[in-house]
């Protein structure tokens, strides 16, 4: 039994796999290319294992961003055979043939596999902050039935894979803040004690109208957040309420007039 196991193991670990890893240093102006590496694979190995092996043992100049290696921090985002994925969550044995690893193309390249994702924090700064109701007695009370929707969005690990896969952000550079930030807005909007409605802001400043609900963001989310169905479409509906619905806007004008007259 034991010998058999060993044999199987040997067969598995003895294999090397070909990795094509994108190399470019934008500061030297030489352009980029894929460099091939042969890496010995072990059972259960993930793509990040191979990449860190290369950067620690073969070529330390290979730039790569990673940290927890447990799919919790969202650092090691990359495009593996053209699909935006976390390197630490992509097992080598789920891919046949050569494994091509490239950086997230939606962001400016820093070096090799590392991109500059700082634009996301700039967007986050612009997002209207959580604004709770005033004068509620502390400690706050909230009903469990009201917190679930927002909590789904709080699972986001900010890997920015959804931003990367979004064709609006990636290809068209339209004034759309991208799926991650709509999810963030939704997480604040759907907080039961938040008083703001960010849907108007999302449409006017965030370019929500550029999203054409093609759902690639929802497909790549490693946390399985239903980005389009639960965040983007509800925010689109809310912005339809506040901006496009003629009856609601009539009604609002009427009730606002009434309130004004009262004052």
């Amino acid at each position: 039994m034991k010998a058999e196991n060993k044999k199987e193991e040997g067969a598995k670990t003895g294999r090397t796999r070909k990795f094509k890893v994108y190399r470019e240093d934008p500061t030297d102006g030489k352009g980029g290319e894929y460099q091939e590496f042969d890496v010995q694979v072990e059972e259960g190995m993930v793509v990040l294992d191979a990449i860190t092996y290369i950067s620690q043992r073969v070529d330390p100049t290979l730039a790569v961003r990673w940290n927890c290696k447990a799919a919790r921090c969202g650092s090691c985002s990359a495009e593996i055979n053209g699909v935006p994925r976390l390197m630490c969550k992509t097992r080598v044995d789920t891919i046949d043939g050569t494994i091509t690893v490239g950086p997230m193309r939606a962001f400016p390249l820093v070096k090799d596999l590392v991109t500059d994702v700082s634009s996301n924090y700039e967007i986050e700064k612009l997002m209207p902050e959580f604004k709770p109701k005033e004068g509620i007695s502390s400690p706050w009370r909230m009903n469990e039935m009201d917190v679930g929707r927002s909590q789904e969005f709080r699972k986001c690990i900010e890997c920015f894979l959804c931003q990367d896969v979004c064709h609006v952000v990636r290809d068209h550079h339209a004034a759309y803040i991208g799926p991650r930030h709509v999810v963030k807005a939704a997480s604040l909007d759907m907080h039961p004690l938040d008083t703001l409605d960010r849907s108007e802001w999302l449409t006017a400043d965030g370019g929500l109208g550029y999203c054409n609900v093609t759902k690639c963001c929802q497909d790549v989310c490693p946390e399985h957040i239903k980005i389009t169905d639960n965040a983007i479409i509800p925010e689109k509906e809310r912005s339809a309420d506040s901006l496009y619905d003629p009856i609601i806007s009539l009604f609002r004008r009427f009730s606002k007039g009434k309130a004004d007259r009262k004052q």
Partner: protein
Amino acid sequence: MAQKNIAVSRLIPSEFFEPNLRLYSFIFLIAAASIALYLFPVGEFKGYIDPFYSPTILVLPLVGLYRLTCYAYRKDYNRHVFKHPVACPVYTRMDGPQRSYTGETSSLFKVENLHRYFLYSAIAILPFFYYDLVLSLMYSGGIILRIGSIVLAVNAVLITLYVFSCHSLRSLIGGRKDCFSCMANASGRKKFYDVQSGLNAHHEQIAWASLVFIVFTDLYMRALSAGIPLDHVIFHILKL
């Protein structure tokens, strides 16, 4: 996995791996309906009313707009007609910076924001499908259940499910509210919202199923009126 998809997609158009049957069936339906309506009118046959000839036909444009502005169909035509993008893997998406793009911000596509009004009209039309069903059951006096009635019933149920799994409805019944517990009958409404959300998760599949079934229903009725003996009486209770 991804590698496999890419390899295969070079032989066969990648659309075939996408849930785009809805779109093709929709185009087919519009074409078939137009031809059928004007060239081969069937109308009523032994108490069955072909869905295309029931009063719903009067509002066919609204039904068409309801489907056209539906989030499921939007995904389909944005992917497969406009190719923005065709697919998610970056090598096969057929989208790029060289192509201009306005998404749903252009004047024409701002109509998408009025999906809810088409939903309202779709809800208004729903009872007619059941009315037609009842007529088929009452044919010949007494109550008669035939296979055709079952076809009509399934058709009605599928359309009902499609309408009630709508994203706009989801917003209307609770999605737009931040606080369920603040509403009257909180737990009931939350339950309704949850059930509807469960349906909504399958909106794309239901949209397609109901579309296909309308065509099937139409074909079934046509077959009957052409004299093909498909129908069968399951039971018949005569008027007492």
